[in-house]
């Protein structure tokens, strides 16, 4: 179905060629022209163009489909010569295609969501020439929300109108939408505006928008603090067991995280290779147990092979685990290469949740916050409430006596270390969703993890949580006004000073049991 049936005319070969090749500006002009009189063929061609599925030669354009060329005008299959070139679309061109498609969708689509998106897209790329179309769309639009958006689009399009009155009115209208997009439009106009009263109107509008964006900034800052905190927490939780409880100064903790991340990568590969495309999004679900098991296994091997000979000699564990960490890093380099490997967010974790016009909370971070919470609860329950947890705590405090109570200490040690390592693996799995997966992934987190565990008070799960969240939020708060480098320095200095005040961390064990 087409809106402008009367004026629509079929796509011509010349038009197609003008859109496909030449200087970008000319192509945009040709496109905008074609859109005003678009028919279905034009729409299909524009779609193909924005999919990069078009080739051209000096005199002909081909729409490509399954490696075959079709004439965009006639739709007939035609042979593509060897020397045909791919179309190249740069950002400007892509923007133009988006706008063109939006115009077409605005009236062509029955789906309200599509129309709303189209309206949003147009708002980012307003053009006075489209006003008639927008008005037509307004006339038939029934959805209030979309109508309001379209009003904004019209106002935005009028912002560069030659008529001063229209510009002032447009500024007023745009001020109603408290979003960064409209602010950008107003600002852009402001740099070009010469008339004083229009300038004033623009500035007023901008100030109004600014004021209402403040809350969004605050939410952003807090969210990013919590998010950083949850990352720190995940990184530190495993260490809270291997170091906090077991007393192993585990310098290979980071590498255990790295193994979890690589396990996620491997799981992704397996899904890509053996699973239907539609299942790909679930690779991460499978990667969670996989990363836990992979790291736990490595941890168990380390404990059996090295660590268990070193209980009661914590400083020696530093040396041995340092050696282990070097070897694990190199092992990964030998297997996977020194480069980073790519781990994708599954579809459901891509993008973000738009909370306010200037607050988009990325799904991957939201998921990690939730994940960290779940891991924390599970671990707290396991350590605090189960028999296994009791044995772990008992054994780590006094190995010989625990064995006299009938506890198989060697086995419990292995379980405990494997558990800590497995949690590190889970952290690695989570981190693969926001950062690098490479051989030195672990090195970036080891210092932070230790700081968190120690600041919380060694052996204090609750302290670890407080420290992680505290440092995360503090870091982001300072970063907001002093920049990332100074923020990091400030946080480190804060830790130094904080420990002066509380030499045993936030949750110090008080009293005589601390000395025992």
């Amino acid at each position, binding site marked *: 179905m087409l809106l402008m049936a009367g004026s629509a005319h079929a796509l011509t070969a010349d038009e197609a060629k003008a859109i496909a090749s030449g200087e970008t500006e000319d192509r945009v002009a040709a496109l905008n022209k074609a859109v005003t009189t678009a028919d279905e063929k034009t729409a299909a061609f524009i779609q193909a163009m924005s999919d990069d599925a078009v080739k051209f030669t000096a005199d002909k354009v081909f729409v490509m489909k399954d490696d075959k060329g079709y004439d965009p005008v006639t739709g007939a299959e035609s042979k593509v010569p060897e020397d045909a070139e791919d179309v190249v679309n740069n950002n400007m061109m892509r923007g133009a295609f988006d706008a063109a498609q939006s115009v077409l969708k605005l009236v062509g689509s029955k789906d309200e969501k599509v129309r709303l998106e189209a309206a949003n897209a147009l708002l980012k790329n307003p053009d006075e020439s489209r006003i008639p179309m927008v008005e037509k769309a307004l006339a038939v639009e029934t959805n209030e929300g979309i109508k309001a958006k379209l009003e904004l689009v019209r106002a935005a399009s009028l912002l560069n109108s030659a008529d001063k009155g229209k510009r002032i009115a447009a500024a007023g209208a745009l001020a109603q939408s408290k979003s960064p997009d409209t602010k950008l439009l107003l600002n852009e106009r402001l740099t070009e505006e010469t008339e004083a009263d229009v300038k004033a109107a623009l500035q007023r509008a901008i100030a109004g928008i600014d004021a209402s964006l403040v809350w969004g900034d605050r939410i952003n800052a807090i969210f990013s603090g919590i998010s950083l905190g949850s990352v720190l927490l995940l990184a530190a939780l495993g260490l809270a067991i291997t170091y906090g409880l077991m007393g192993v100064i585990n310098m290979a903790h980071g590498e255990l995280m790295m193994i979890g991340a690589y396990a996620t990568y491997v799981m992704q590969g397996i899904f890509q290779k053996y699973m239907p495309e539609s299942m790909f999004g679930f690779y991460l679900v499978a990667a969670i147990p996989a990363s836990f098991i992979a790291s736990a296994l490595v941890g168990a091997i380390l404990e059996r092979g090295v660590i268990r000979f070193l209980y009661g000699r914590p400083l*020696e564990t530093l040396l041995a685990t*340092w050696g282990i960490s070097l070897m694990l890093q190199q092992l990964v380099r030998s297997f996977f290469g020194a480069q980073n490997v790519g781990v994708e967010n599954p579809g459901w974790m891509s993008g973000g949740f738009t909370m306010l016009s200037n607050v988009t909370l990325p799904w991957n971070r939201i998921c990690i916050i939730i994940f960290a919470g779940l891991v924390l609860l599970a671990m707290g329950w396991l350590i605090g409430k189960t028999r296994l947890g009791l044995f772990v705590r008992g054994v780590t405090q006094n190995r010989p006596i625990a064995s006299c109570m009938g506890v198989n200490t060697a086995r419990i040690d292995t379980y405990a270390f494997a558990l800590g390592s497995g949690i590190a693996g889970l952290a690695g799995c989570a981190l693969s969703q926001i950062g690098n997966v490479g051989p030195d992934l672990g090195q970036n987190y080891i210092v932070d993890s*230790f700081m968190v565990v120690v*600041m919380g008070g060694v052996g204090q799960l609750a302290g670890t949580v407080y420290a992680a969240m505290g440092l995360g939020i503090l870091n982001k708060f300072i970063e907001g006004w002093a920049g990332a480098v100074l923020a990091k*320095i400030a946080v480190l*200095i804060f830790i130094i000073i904080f*420990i002066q005040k509380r*030499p*045993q961390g936030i949750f110090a064990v008080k009293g005589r049991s601390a000395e025992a």
Partner: protein
Amino acid sequence: MTKVALPSKGPLLSGKGWTAFCIALIVVCAAAPMLNLWVPHDSAFYMSDYAVALVGKIMCYAICALAMDLIWGYTGILSLGHGMFFALGGYMMGMYLMRQIGRDGNYKSDLPDFMVFLDWKALPWHWTFSGSFVMTLILIVAVPGLIAFVFGFFAFRSRIKGVYFSIITQAMTFATMLLFFRNETGFGGNNGFTDFKRILGIPIATQSMRMTLFVMTGCTLLGFFLFGKWLIGSKFGRVLQAIRDAESRVMFSGYNPLPYKLTIWVISAIMCGVAGALYVPQVGIINPGEMSPANSIEIAIWAAVGGRATLIGPIIGAFIVNGAKSWLTVVAPEYWLYFLGALFIAVTLFLPDGVVGLVRRWIARMKAPKRNAGELSEGRAEAQRSLAASEGVEPAALHKIAVAAAAGEPEGARA
């Protein structure tokens, strides 16, 4: 009433010890220069410039390891921030060396190149003394010493112990590293200082200058070694070890641990600073990477590999680890981390007292069999007991004393 025989304090070094010390001194001051300067290059005995540089560098590291051992091995305080003191000493020396470049830099200016590049018109305040060699020497000691003093004073006063101390020292070096990375801090940012031309007007890139630095480093190392020996042998050293074992007992015995810890901490920091100052002209570069937490951990590792709470151990450890590193990165560039990692694991598993501990056990075993055989052949417990009684010690002590004697270590220097 039997007269109690109190153990007498051993000399600073045993006879054998002095001999070994003198040999080391001769090697450093005479043999190495001769092999480098006067032996023809194609001779098998020629000590290449590369070897001189390498050994010189490792001797600097050995000083750090020694410093680490005083604070960690003997006092039980693990510092994960000694890299910072090392780098600070290095930076003090580096500033002087940068000034000595004079107008020979890229920009032909009196200011160091990086300042010209940042459009600075004058030296920042903290470069005030960088022109004077004497002031530089003072600063090499004073800056690490003062920072260590302030940091240590507050930390020890707050009774920060164990890992808590380790972690804040790590935070300290990490923060300083980030600070020095910034160009605004005025230490050349990430690149740090390099391209040095001369010291005291004498070109650095000459063999004789290099040899001079080498000899100075060697003598400093040996000097610090003797100093450490003396310190640890004194009652001061024993208080340190007592603090390590039972700090509360030390306090209830009337010692305030604060000045003790602070003193050894500052001494240790200064030693690292001096090592850094000797290191910079020899390797030709100082940059904030030296303050990365990993570097400080490595210092501790040298000490552990060699053997903690012995003075010779850390020196040996520094040579073994760094020698292995230099060698393996060439012969097995893609596998050396496996070897190095395995070395660390092997040392902890099989040599709990480091290489020195191993050597001691060997020596003890060489001497012990006779004694053990004797004990076994006698067979009867009664006889053993009377032997012990006649020696005036418990049977358990017999063995201990034999081991200590065999290792030839004077009092107060046990693992």
